[in-house]
């Protein structure tokens, strides 16, 4: 152990930077981005799957009677594609990442330093959340060009929907990681949310096509308000009351998830 001195460091400590929450999260996010680039399975599941799935779904949607409720194939597929991106690219991927970092004792080590708990979870989430955001933009561009989706009539609702969806999915991923023991079992523990959202949140089947009573229950599922806001952003068909209701539901789920994380998140493996 030679070549460097304990007493006389090359640079004096006084001149060096003090960290801030933003700089610490950036350092963590950079490392997570490197790791994301090195995990082939995460890239396939998180990046390609959401882009490929809507294409395979197109023929199914064409057989639905979506025109009867005033929707076009593009207006069903675009929110569905963004929903897939949120579910696979953000939610499932992040639940596995949180679980992996806990099992590797990375979370425990990070907690010994200056990082605070929300910074650790936030910094680790940044790369996948950014990926999800970019995917949504790519999907919007793709659907606009390929499926003749018109310009959104209420873009602010669509933007709010996507942003709330990203934050909510990240928070729900942390909740799921709390009940997940290993990276492998994350494939199972993320299933309920993925399946429920795909069937009941208007991702594959628009809520407008469901019986009224069932639809009104499904509206309360976590991803439903996100899809509603995105679709409404394009059709412009949401009343202020409906839009506020969707926002309130999405916010409620997000706050609930944050509360659950603060209360039940596990930072160390069960031994």
């Amino acid at each position, binding site marked *: *152990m*030679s070549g460097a001195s304990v007493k006389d*460091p090359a640079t004096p400590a006084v001149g060096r*930077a003090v960290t801030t929450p933003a700089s610490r999260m950036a350092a963590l996010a950079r*490392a997570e981005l490197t790791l994301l680039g090195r995990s082939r399975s995460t890239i396939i599941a998180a990046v390609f799957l959401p882009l490929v799935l809507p294409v395979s779904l197109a023929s199914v949607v064409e057989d639905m009677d979506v025109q009867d409720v005033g929707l076009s194939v593009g207006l069903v597929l675009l929110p569905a594609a963004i929903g897939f991106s949120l579910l696979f690219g953000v939610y499932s991927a992040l639940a596995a990442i949180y679980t992996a970092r806990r099992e590797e004792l*990375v979370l425990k080590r*990070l907690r*010994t*330093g*200056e990082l605070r708990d929300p910074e650790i979870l936030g910094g680790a989430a940044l790369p996948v959340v950014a990926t999800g955001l970019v995917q949504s933009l790519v999907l919007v561009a793709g659907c606009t060009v390929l499926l003749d989706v018109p310009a959104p009539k209420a873009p602010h609702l669509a933007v709010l929907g996507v942003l709330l969806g990203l934050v909510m999915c990240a928070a729900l991923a942390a909740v799921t990681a709390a009940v997940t023991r290993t990276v492998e079992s994350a494939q199972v523990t993320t299933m309920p949310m993925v399946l429920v959202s795909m069937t009941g949140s208007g991702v594959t089947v628009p809520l407008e096509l469901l019986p009224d009573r069932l639809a009104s229950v499904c509206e309360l599922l976590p991803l439903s308000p996100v899809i509603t806001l995105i679709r409404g952003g394009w059709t412009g068909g949401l009343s202020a009351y409906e839009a506020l209701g969707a926002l309130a539901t999405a916010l409620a789920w997000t706050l609930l998830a944050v509360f659950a994380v603060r209360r039940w998140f596990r930072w160390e493996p069960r031994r």
Partner: protein
Amino acid sequence: MDTNEHVIEVTDLRRVYGGGFEAVRGISFHVDRGEIFALLGTNGAGKTSTVELLEGLARPDGGRIRVLGHDPYAERAAVRPRTGVMLQEGGFPSELTVAETARMWAGCVSRARPIGEALALVGLAARADVRVKQLSGGERRRLDLALAVLGEPEVLFLDEPTTGLDAEGRRDTWDLVRALRDAGTTVLLTTHYLEEAENLADRLAILHKGRIAAAGTPAEVTGAQPSRITFELPEGYFVGDLPPLGELGVCGHEVDGRVVRLRTRELQRAATGLLVWAERAQVALRRLDVRSASLEEAFLGIAREASRNDETEEVAA
């Protein structure tokens, strides 16, 4: 800066786990600035449970901790930038390289040294571009140490810093820890290597089942234990033929076949008495072994005594 302040102060500390298991049962000690303090104990003695509380990873279930004058759990913002921590086990993403890992940590530590300098301190500079998963166990321990000293902390917590290191790596780590101490760093380490505590620690405490069984400088802890004289009784002699043991300052003895073991707190007097007797009787004491207590004997003695007390307690209860 006050040089004599207690950098770490622990008073009646308790930690109880979910299942009701009491890992730490009311311990008190203090560590002064620039001191190396070792917590010694067998597995399950409560070393890691104690250190985690000092690091501020969990809230104690009883008692009080002050690190640099602050509660490490409640006032973490005041404490964390001034402490460095080496956990008992890694905690690095296996797919990052050594340099990437250090860069990440440097971004989370105020006033971090340049990472090249930190890696050079632990002799890992040449391994900077190797993935963590390809490092040996010893190299991972050294990476952990490099990260712990990255921010030039005033207080360094090292949980079993040399476990998994070879003899040379262990010496290197000891040299580095001493150099840090000489530069003013306060070091609290845990170890189950008695040799490590004896070599490195200015003061130590032996933990047994969540309590401090003995504390002091290595010399004090060792000195509290009796020294030992072992020899084989000459042919035709019995223990009764020896001079009265009490007069020799012997406080206990065992006979095992022809081998006699004497325990004494006055080693010179006992040894002289025995040798003078042998000289006069013109007999040879085969397999003669005279030794002061080592930390190992002290440790085993304390563990034995503590378990005896536990049994008595259980019987009484």
